[in-house]
């Protein structure tokens, strides 16, 4: 592009439009992070569902992979930040949303893991116990540990939140659809037996992150090739 070329009014407007369009159609989201988390949540949810449905155990808590995945995520974030050639107006806001989501999710996991133990200790200190009593005395009473009913529904609700915001702000339809599916599954999970929650979790991860991640990845490679 030369500089001192004389521009007519129409040419100026056309140039402004072209450059704004060029910026608008520049993507740098490789989809790696979305694919990583989408795959992991899908695998962990499905495995948990299968273990519950077919009464077997893999010998460890599969959700531990979420903690391990933080390490590659840090490397991915550093690499993407280095390769990023521009920052859009919405990048900081989107980053803040996902950071808040991560902290809230960690908080919910902490709540889930701590509150039942603390409640059990409190109950014990107060000198009473929770008992599962079968109506009609069909089976003998069982002492049970405190639990939070239908907690996974809250996870589904939480999964939808950053996905919906990203979909709206970035005008990225696959995430918008993913978030809507997550909200529908959240409502369904309120009325269905707990054993299906993990299946809903897998479906949410696939629709919110895995499919949008694959679409982002394809788009990223298409852009990369067109830039060569």
């Amino acid at each position, binding site marked *: *592009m030369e500089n*001192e*070329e004389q521009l007519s009014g129409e040419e*100026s*407007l056309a140039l402004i439009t072209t450059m704004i369009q060029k*910026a608008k159609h520049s993507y740098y989201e490789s989809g790696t992070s979305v694919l990583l988390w989408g795959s992991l949540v899908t695998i962990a949810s499905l495995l948990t569902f299968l273990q519950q449905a077919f009464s077997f155990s893999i010998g460890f808590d599969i959700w531990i992979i979420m903690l391990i995945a933080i390490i590659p995520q840090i490397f991915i974030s550093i690499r993407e930040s280095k390769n990023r050639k521009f920052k859009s*107006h919405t990048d900081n806001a989107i980053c803040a949303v996902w950071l808040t989501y991560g902290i809230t999710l960690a908080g919910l996991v902490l709540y889930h893991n701590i509150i039942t133990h603390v409640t059990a200790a409190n109950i014990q200190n107060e000198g009473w116990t929770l008992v599962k009593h079968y109506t009609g005395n069909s089976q003998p009473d069982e002492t049970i540990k405190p639990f939070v009913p239908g907690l996974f529904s809250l996870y589904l609700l939480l999964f939808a939140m950053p996905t919906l915001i990203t979909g709206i702000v970035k005008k990225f339809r696959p995430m918008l659809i993913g978030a809507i599916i997550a909200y529908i599954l959240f409502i369904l999970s309120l009325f269905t037996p707990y054993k299906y929650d993990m299946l809903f979790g897998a479906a949410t991860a696939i629709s919110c992150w895995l499919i949008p991640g694959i679409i982002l990845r394809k788009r990223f490679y298409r852009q990369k090739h067109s830039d060569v």
Partner: protein
Amino acid sequence: MFKELDPILHSQLRLAIISLLISVQEAEFTFIKEKTNATAGNLIVQLNKLKDAGYIEISKQFRDNYTQTTCKITRVGIDAFEQYVKDLQAYLNTGK
């Protein structure tokens, strides 16, 4: 009667740079070069003219053995661009 178009912006490459920078929060030199198809030398000259006019900020930082140049439009640049578009519209309407 219409206002004369801002001479800083009424040039092909500088207008392209500002149009690009108004669409993003900040952009690297390589990104601007790629999108404008300008030569590095020409681009540097025009970026400096925009910087001298106070329309953009240029920051340099050392990263992985190379200098990374990042450009960002300033408030003055945004106002100038908006005024340019208004004047351009007035100019085009007068011509009809």
